[in-house]
């Protein structure tokens, strides 16, 4: 596979390490009520869609950036990729 790195262009997926659903970026508030249930959901449950999936890839053999890649799990077609830190910072603003 080729990952369209937002800075580096198409790169061999072998340079990357895959983590999973981009929802892992949304770590629950540990101080909130029901934090344990929220963490159980966060740590263990997945949407696991047959179709478009936003997922985390780490460019371990490249610039060591974490990417959020949007990919169709039924065709492997990649619809886009963004720097995870940009997304997270953007979402925080």
């Amino acid at each position: 596979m080729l990952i369209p790195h937002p800075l580096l262009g198409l790169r061999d997926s072998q340079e990357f390490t895959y983590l999973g659903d981009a929802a892992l970026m949304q770590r629950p508030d540990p101080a909130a009520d029901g934090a344990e249930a929220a963490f159980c959901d966060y740590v263990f449950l997945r949407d696991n869609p047959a179709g478009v999936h936003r997922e985390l890839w780490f460019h371990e053999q490249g610039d060591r950036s974490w990417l959020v890649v949007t990919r169709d799990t039924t065709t492997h077609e990649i619809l886009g990729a963004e720097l995870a830190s940009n997304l997270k910072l953007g979402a925080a603003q």
Partner: protein
Amino acid sequence: MTRLAGGLIDRSLPLNFTFDGKAYTGFQGDTLASALLANGVQLMGRSFKYHRPRGVVAAGSEEPNALVELRSGARQEPNTRATVAELFDGLAARSQNHIGPLDRDFLAVNDLLSPFFAAGFYYKTFMWPKAFWEKLYEPAIRKAAGLGSLSMLPDPDAYDKGFLHCDLLVVGGGAAGLAAALTAGRAGAEVILADEDFALGGRLLAESDLLDETEASVWIATVRAELDSLPNVRIMTRTTVFGVYDHGIYGAVERVADHLPTPGDKVRQTLWRITAKRAVLAAGATERHIPFADNDRPGVMLAGAMRAYANRWAVSPVKREADAIAIFTNGDDGHRTAMDLIAKGAKVLGVIDVRQTAPRFGDYEVFAGATVTGTKGRLGLNAIEITRNGRSEWHPVGALGVAGGWNPNVHLASHHRGRPVWNADLLSFVPGADGPKGLIPAGAAVGKGGTEEALADGMNAAITALAGIGIVAAGIALPKAANAAAEQVAFWHVPGKKRAWVDFQNDVTVKDIALAHKENMRPVEHLKRWTTLGMATDQGKTSNISALAVMAELTGKSIPETGTTIFRPPYTGVSLSVLGGGDTGTTFRPRRLTPTHHWAEAQGAEFVEVGQWMRAQYFPQAGETHWRQTVDREVLAVRSGVGLCDVTTLGKVDVQGRDAGEFLNRLYANMMGTLKVGMVRYGLMLREDGHAYDDGTCARMAQDHYVVTTTTANAGLVYRQMEFFHQCVWPELDVQLISTTDAWAQIAVAGPNARELLSRVVDDFDLSNEAFPFMACAELTICQGLRARLFRISFSGELAYEIAVPARYGQALIERLMQKGADLGVTPYGTEALGVLRIEKGHAAGSELNGQTTAQMLGLGRMVSPKKDSIGAVMSRREGLAADRRRLVGLKPLDAGTQIMAGSHLFTAGAAQTMETDQGWVTSSCYSPHLQSYIALGFLEAGDARMGEVLVAANPLEGQEMKVEVVSPHFVDPEGGRLRD
């Protein structure tokens, strides 16, 4: 000899070869199959199940029958298709899958027993008595299994892998492929043209068609010359594109040296991963046969293959020149074979055409509305039965060509599981619209097999493909060509009572398909699996469509309703050597060497693999005959003098930034932000699921600068995890991370004399306990000005330091320490002694920190700070983790001289030993020379409350059982006085 005139062989270069030990001669340009046919050899092998005599069927890589063991010794290569094995001088091949000589195969008895071996028979029997399957039936079946054999010797040849990139990959160098490549090449695109054959031209080489009114080879040579001259075109012959992977990545094997007696300095094959923005699939088509009674005899072959042998290799497929050849066809294509054979001077009996109104294109007899209904000839064809209007007569022939129509080579187009679609006009499946993105099929691969249409289609495919990536390609002047007549009718097999083969290699007949139908194995995948149809080395290239047609007839459905088959990589078999490529021995995977590796080697150290690393395991000295002597000596040296151990392998991550402390607070279960500059703290990291993950130390070098260490095993994973939390969870923190594992050589200096030894190398640095206490760290210089880092940390429980210097000085430093410490009893120690020292001290390592345990189990529960959040803190409080009463304990055998084997399970004395009564297990064990006893660590139910209890450590795996006493895991200096002094 049955050579004809002409052809594309070089008669000035005769080549000697042997088949089953018998010597023959062929020419440069021959394949093994063409050369054998030229020598009148029709019998080349045996079928898989019935051991029927088999001759060559095809002229390309789809060949199901003519499989041989090529070469000998360690280069023996089973199941090699004679049709694609290029002849070289000295080639030696043997037929395979027979007992006794090929022409008198003992296992041919299977053919007589064939009624018992109908499709699926083995699922229905061999069940009683139960024990007989493994003891009798299966061994017998396995003995008969397989085709060729391995030499059982390591492959002596070298293999390469590589990467290529292009705008357009053209798969296939026939009419369509050449037109595509030339179009794209002239447009300036980066082009790769790959063909599995050693010559470009594809089917043009096999036909007698003219291009621009001359032989096609002239045009091919002109095109090749132009492509060769273009720097943006790479021609790769002997290269099979075997698979289409995601995002335009194609797998290809280049057979660099398979046409040579041995590769010499070259690699034998190269695996190329080609990244292509676009591709044109110009893979041509494969001819299909028409099953009829006894259609599997040597001498019966595809009519198109017969043309290829005649035109390209100047071979007539008969044993004797006088033998006549007949053609059996359901369309015009078979007539081309008759025409070409006649033109070459071969004797043609005529064309048996199933059509009542069959055309005649030349001076030969046409048996219109006729079929072939039988054959004779034990080891090779000598007569066929022609039936017309219910009347049958036998005709002597030496060969029969069968033309059942052409199947486009859709394989690559279905590698992404897209389904081919049925084209009723072409009577074949063609690539569907849901093929791999960027792959455009063209020419015969989409059913445009006429020369003129293939050329034009190839050109247009290239123009379309390049337009998709913004390259404008102009049309090119194509040579004048014609499309041969190609009318045909749907005629799939000749009904009859005798066996008619569909899959030649696996001996699947029309009757087997009928039986599968009767037994409700009707979905095409059930049919294949029940009968083994299409599972042979050719993967059904010559049989699948015929089988579908037969099943369709039985079910009364159309062929596409009956099913389609899709193909998976590889297109043809790929040697495991080239897929495995490169290094298979000690260089199979990279090895990390510590900065003192070469020094340790010179000391005679034994090494051990630890992940990617090679680490010194122990340093034997003269007179030591057992590793235990060495390790005991090393351990005692640390406890009584001073020892040196290279600990560079521990992961090191440089953490800087304004928020470095806060970041580490969140990563580690315990507090790091409160650490004073110049101090080190032991750190425990959990996984987010609450289990213990990794441990190490954090040293605060400055307010905004920490150096953290990880375990050797988890170094890369922890660094990755840190980057995850830094970038994905808390990017607002000002933190910069970088690994420094390799940059610093780190040496543990441990033992009562450690301070004294270090004092001899540091430059003006106060090592006193007051100035540099336990858990202190500092940057300093040693050995007259070399920058270094010093950490007062201890894994052994002794007074100990770890000193780090730039890696290039690691070797010099250990040499210096050895020299300066000679009078202090300085001793290098390896991982074994390190292990003993830490077990004696009760420190957890990989066997305890194995990802299944918790901080509480490790006795580190109090490290999970309740004052703050950290990774895993919330989840560590779940019921199952909180209620887990297993604890790390020490274990001492009642008999000090008996080893407690790590991996033993613990049981209450006298209890039955079952999974339900299991009380825990032994994680690590060693001999403690200090205590003069074997000792161990283990996890035990309620272990912290069972001190002094005597348990059974059971190791039924090795027939051992022993009594052990539960003790504190801190065998040595439990108060920790030594490391603080």
